[in-house]
């Protein structure tokens, strides 16, 4: 299970991989190229206020896709609010 942590900070909402080493290992075990750097998805509050309540797309699915965690990989993944 790979966990993406959703964290509400003073300036906006952040999404980050919770255990990067486990995430990288999980991707590599499946032959998937893993990132060499850490990434943080950031939604400033001015965006989140107006858009997060009714996003036009399933935003958290897009976050999973960004981290190469689509259902097709077979990797279990959850977004957990910190």
């Amino acid at each position, binding site marked *: 299970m790979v966990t993406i942590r959703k964290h509400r900070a003073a300036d906006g909402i952040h999404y980050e991989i919770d255990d990067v080493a486990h995430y990288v290992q999980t991707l590599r075990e499946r032959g998937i*190229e893993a990132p060499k750097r850490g990434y*943080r998805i950031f939604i400033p509050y001015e965006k989140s206020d107006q858009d997060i309540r009714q996003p036009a797309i399933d935003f958290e699915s897009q976050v999973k*896709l*960004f981290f190469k965690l689509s259902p097709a990989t077979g990797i279990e993944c959850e977004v957990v609010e910190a």
Partner: protein
Amino acid sequence: MATIDEPITVTVDPAVDSAGAMLRNVAHQLLHTGRLDDLPWICTHDSAPDDLLLELCDLGLYLDELGHRSGPRQLLERLADQHHYPEAIITLASNLYLDPNEPTDSFAAFISRHADSGWTLESLARLEPSSAAKADAFLTAVKNHPDAKRILQVVESRRFESEAETATDPTAIERLYATRDPRVWRALSGNRSVPRDVLEQLASVTGVSNAADIRDRARRNIAMQ
């Protein structure tokens, strides 16, 4: 993973930004800051947008990673025509050769542009084209290649192999067996019309490529007779 580095932040608008837009954002940050070592992660990403892949291709970056993608087609065309990238040439040539919906003219023009690629010609020689016209265009391209003789032998072997899979005439079977071509023998070993004495010889064959497979198939065929 560079754990000592601060994570790269991707600022998004959740109403409109897809994974592809986030990847475009990341790629441009990496390019602008010269941190190119993470571009392979993006080049191999299923959600990477086509325009970004084309941009990276035009920059000549990580062509190996881009060249192992199955598409988009425009990327493969640029890799083939601008960078002469072998895997892209083979992938496109094979698609054009095998797909009945691809016009012969497109295949002929493409293979004519890449007729110096012996690897591509040899790969195509092992395939059954979607039309006789494409087979002719292929043979025209092969004719002027320095390895034409060897490539044409591969074509002939493939034709014999195809014939051996379904041959029923004992004279034809005998002729095909006499080729001593392991691919032809393998095809004969699974053909229910092959006489028992030929199958018995195939069931004890050694010293050729795929000998174990040929023996297994022949033995199974004998057992079913």
